């Protein structure tokens, strides 16, 4: 039996009068790549904030590899390998690419492993070697996203949550990044939850899709099941007609 990397149990979140999430429950098995889709404002980013520990839920619990982490500080979750990127890329802008990666590796690397080689591995894996001494402001968006993922993964990563990492990229850039993410999944065994709007790209990489709409989950299943789910077509894909294919 494969274990569950992530369990979101009855999570709700309010912002004053606004209900951003209502009774959201789903789980992700270890090694899976799961896509989280839904229209703007559905609550996807808010869910990431709660899973990563950046924001407390109003209701519900988060379990990470079986342990309840609902009250655990974000930095401690990260050190345990619960990693994420941000919808709007957030890098340490006064620091070099290498320092961005190094700081995460230095905090999260299990003792006994070499910091320098972890940083080098990460820079190499994301093809950032030549850019290591650059500042983020000098990079293309695709490279900035790469740095953010490298920083998110460095040191320790078991579950990676990517918030619209592919959007804003050209078709080629997006495909390159997808193959790098798949490589992370395959070579490091990292479980991936990815929020995305480029559905055609997503459909090719994920095993399962979770559809969030109006603060709640409306469907779950394989990309094909989701594409044929009348509720989803009605609620989410209706206006875009066949965006999944």
């Amino acid at each position, binding site marked *: 039996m494969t274990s569950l990397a992530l369990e979101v149990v009855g999570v709700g979140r309010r912002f004053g009068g606004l209900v951003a999430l209502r009774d959201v429950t789903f789980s992700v098995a270890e090694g899976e790549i799961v896509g989280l889709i839904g229209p703007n404002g559905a609550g996807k980013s808010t869910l990431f904030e709660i899973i*990563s*520990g*950046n924001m407390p839920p109003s209701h519900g619990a988060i379990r990470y590899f079986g342990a309840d982490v609902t009250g655990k*500080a*974000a*930095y401690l979750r*990260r*050190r345990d390998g619960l*990693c*994420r990127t*941000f919808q709007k890329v*957030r*890098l*340490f*802008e*006064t*620091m*070099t690419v290498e*320092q961005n990666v*190094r*700081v*995460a590796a*230095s*905090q*999260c690397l299990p003792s006994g492993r070499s*910091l320098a080689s972890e940083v080098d591995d990460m820079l190499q894996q994301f093809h950032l070697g030549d850019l290591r001494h650059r*500042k983020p*402001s*000098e*990079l*293309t*968006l695709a490279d*900035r996203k790469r740095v953010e993922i490298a*920083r*998110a993964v460095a*040191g*320790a990563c078991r579950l990676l949550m990517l918030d619209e990492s592919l959007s804003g990229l050209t078709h080629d850039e997006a495909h390159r990044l997808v193959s790098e993410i798949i490589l992370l999944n395959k070579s490091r065994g990292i479980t991936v939850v990815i929020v995305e709007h480029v559905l055609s790209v997503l459909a090719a990489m994920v095993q399962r899709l979770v559809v969030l709409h109006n603060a709640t989950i409306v469907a779950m299943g394989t990309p094909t099941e989701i594409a044929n789910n009348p509720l989803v077509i009605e609620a989410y894909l209706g206006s875009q007609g066949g965006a999944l294919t």
Partner: protein
Amino acid sequence: MTVNGAGRPRSTVGVSGEPLWLLGVLAAVAILPALPFINNFIIAAVVRALIFIALGQAWNVVAGIGGLLSLGHGVFLGIGCYTMGILFNHFGLPPWFGVFAGVALACVVAAAMGALTLRVRGVFFALATVSVSLALVQLSRHFVDLTGGADGLSLKFIGNSLWVGQSRTPTPFLYAGLAVVVLYYFATRMILASSFGLTMMAVRDDETAAAAAGVAVFRTKLFGLVLSAGMTAFAAALYMQFYMAIDPEAAFGLSQAIQLQLPSLLGGIGTAIGPVIGGAIMIFMSEVTNWGSTKIGVEGGDILVYGILLLVVVLRAPQGVAGLFKSAIVR
């Protein structure tokens, strides 16, 4: 290469050849007393520069590297000076021991301030540093027997004595000041190159992203503040032994608070070399203005000049003088 976003590259650590020419300058300062045309007046001015460079280096750790805008670092200068002064005048404890009591007390106060204010984001910390300054002014006025009240506290004068750290001539303070500045310079470089320094910079740049990189944000800020406070109280020993006196205004006043921040802001905040350059400029300007304003009979000209200097730096060279040099080299 595609360039996203505007602006020149920002400086973090100084250029790699930096220590060499800096050591040259410091060596030149060290042989000052041996030069024929140098008198005690000039040496005293250089000592003042070294003292404010050291205090600036201390502020730079928390504000420059850590991004925590402490507007009231005079608190730690005052704690250092008053502790040493009280222990010496009332208990005969020489500054060699008093300084460690001052450093310890400054660290405790910093830890308490930090614990109360650093968990929340935003301006609370900056405001807290100001209100603690104001509280200490009241406190020093209240315990007149110990602190001398508004008149301040003057060290009992013994004369030339290594044991009590006193000297009639400024030359010993030149070497003591030089030692502290060199120590703090290399300490700053070590911090900048260390994992701890990286976490401080990460917190400065983006707290949320720092936490998402595994950084213990609160603890990092707290440690940075305590370290900076301890460094300030240690440099306060130079201040106290050289000036032989402290009063509430000199410790906790606005113009002192500005003088603690100006070296880093002028020279280049967050860099190792910044406070060294900035402190030298600041004291040079202050000496010139004091001389000038005495000539024309205007008081407090230095504060006006500081204000103008700061305005120029903020508007024209936000990375300070060190940043100007660096972009001139890059270009």
